[in-house]
């Protein structure tokens, strides 16, 4: 994570993406064991957006997520053990088991929360951003959401208010062209999403969400602008969801994305692209990759072991925290 306008640190970005990829692959691999008893919405294929945006944030900047937030949480520095334990419903989970995969939080890391009602966190991020402005702190708030979320009225209400008050909120639209199994064309007219945001008065950036360098670069500009007091910024990144909407499996068999073969996915793999650049421009060797893989694998595996070793929350604490003191 960096403070100033970004000079891209590709190795760090790759590491960030790889952690997300391997963690989610491990979740997918173990999901069939029926021990992670909550819906999981995996972001495999979309890691560049989380990694590229969060690379421009400092710890006090806050990030809000949605139903598909493993990547957002991890890229912002959220505690992996606590996330994995949360998915396993353990007392050591980041919500003590109350939330599961769809509700993640790590206040220490500045990951201020994910909830699964689409659009639910968008105005919260604006409120948090406004708080920075009112306190005259130079932090930004960031909210990640999908192309489907762009249809919710609350997003437009939030953009209007953020623009009105010149609030340092970064709206990040992860446009994977899908809401569950419904393609964009059945939900929105042919016009640009970021065009609407621009008309609302936001600064706007669009880019290839599978290119982590591009994401990091555009996000760096947007974050710097917001920090300088130039108001809310909107980033739209085109990307592609590899797996089914929810769960651990590919769903090519459903036939709703007929063109999208394994090759289609591979061509768009943000890790593959970054790895090529690391090889070519940074001279990474096979061994460099292997070492990183080892480290990441160990970290991920440790998070599972942490979860398995963690205590279950007690049923009799189930009603705790209904009200604050």
């Amino acid at each position: 994570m960096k403070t100033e306008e970004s000079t891209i640190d590709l190795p760090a970005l790759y590491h960030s993406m790889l952690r997300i990829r391997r963690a989610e692959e491990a979740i997918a691999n173990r999901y069939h064991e029926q021990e992670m008893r909550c819906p999981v919405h995996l972001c495999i294929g979309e890691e560049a957006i989380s990694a590229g945006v969060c690379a421009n944030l400092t710890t006090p900047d806050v990030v809000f997520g949605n139903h598909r937030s493993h990547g957002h949480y991890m890229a912002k520095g959220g505690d992996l053990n606590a996330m994995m334990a949360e998915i396993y419903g353990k007392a050591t989970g980041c919500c003590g088991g109350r939330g599961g995969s769809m509700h993640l939080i790590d206040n220490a890391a500045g990951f201020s929360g994910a909830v699964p009602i689409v659009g639910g966190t968008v105005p919260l991020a604006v409120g948090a951003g406004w708080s920075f402005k009112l306190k005259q702190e130079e932090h930004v708030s960031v909210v990640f959401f999908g192309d489907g979320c762009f249809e919710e009225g609350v997003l437009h209400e939030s953009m209007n208010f953020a623009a009105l008050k010149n609030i340092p909120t970064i709206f990040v639209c992860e446009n994977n062209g899908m809401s569950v199994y419904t393609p964009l064309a059945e939900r929105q007219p042919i016009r640009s999403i970021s065009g609407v945001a621009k008309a609302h008065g936001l600064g706007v950036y669009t880019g290839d969400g599978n290119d982590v360098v591009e994401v990091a670069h555009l996000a760096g500009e947007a974050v710097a602008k917001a920090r300088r007091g130039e108001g809310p910024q909107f980033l739209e990144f085109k990307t592609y969801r590899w797996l089914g909407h929810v769960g651990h499996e590919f769903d090519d068999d459903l036939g709703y994305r007929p063109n999208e073969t394994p090759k289609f996915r591979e061509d768009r793999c943000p890790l593959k692209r970054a790895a090529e650049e690391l090889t070519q421009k940074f001279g990474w060797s096979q061994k460099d990759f292997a070492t990183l893989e080892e480290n990441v694998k160990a970290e991920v595996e440790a998070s599972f072991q942490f979860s398995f070793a963690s205590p279950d929350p007690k049923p009799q604490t189930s009603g705790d925290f209904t009200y604050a003191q």
Partner: protein
Amino acid sequence: MPSSTIDNASTEKNIREINFGEALQEAQYQAMESDKSIMVIGEGVADPKSIFRTTEGLVEKFGPDRVTEMPLAENGMTGVCIGLATSGFRPILVHQRIDFALLSLDQLINNAAKLHYVFNGQVTVPLVVRMLIGRGWGQGPQHAQSLQSLFAHIPGLKVVMPTTPYDAKGMLLSAIKDNNPVMFIEHRWLYNLKGDVPKEQYLVPLDKASIVKKGSHITVATFSHMTIEAIAAAQVLAEHGVEVEIIDMRSVRPLDMDPVLASVEKTGLLMVLDTGWASCGVSGEIMARTVENAFQYLKKPPMRITLPDHPAPTSKHLADDYYPDAETIVKAIVSLVDDEQKLPTQEMCKRVRRTSLRDIPNPAYVGPF
């Protein structure tokens, strides 16, 4: 897990066993065949999963003008459906979780419930809103609410919660025919429940409770999935001589109190089972109406079994005690009927206790939802 079949068998020939979800699909399919003004609108109604298959085949048969995917815009699309409804169409709007409908309460409460009234009967709003109650497999606090009582507070809305496949089909057909906004609330755990359902169309009224089981010792007024739990509890209680009268309320608004009052007159004891929270909910409403109208027959204070007064936790460990079930009901009924403490409570509880994990509807279930 209690028995997954309720017999509503009529004697007609063309009856066969299908499940609750299939009954819903059939109702919509047949209604749309008979009436071109019926439309189905919702997130996922025309996608490969077709709302857990309840809208399967509709778009293929009736085309995308009548079976329409919608943007994520619950309030706006509810308003659009109201506008369709006042313009001669009969839309069925579907929400995969009732929690999402909270975004649309403005249109439902301010408009759908009131336009017929405020415009002096000059417009009608024949709108059905299908809403699913999620449960288990870590649905968590925003995907497992059971919000029927919110809707049932509002004059101008009708609110129903069928339990059996027979009622699912018959009440959905009635809801579609009704000229009022009908909140049609489906508990996800009923979807695999099988039962006898006639092949042709038939109507089950939207304002009549159904006596599922006759009994003389205690009256149980129950809703939706809790009816299944009540039946399981009643079976084991019956083996020990306790005859429970089970009334599946079916409708939350209006409440059909007559069979409850008649039953309480006979049994003197009332227990209400609801899938939602207690506070300002339909369980208290039934208790209140019972004391208003049958006070003199009550031998003991009525009881209710509802969700505990907090949000649904996600972890299966925390959620394990969240949902009351047949065992809870057995214990509660024993506490009312067994003054001499002669019943083998432990044994009965054991008989109805789930063996599988409690966060799935049945042992065959494989996540995710």
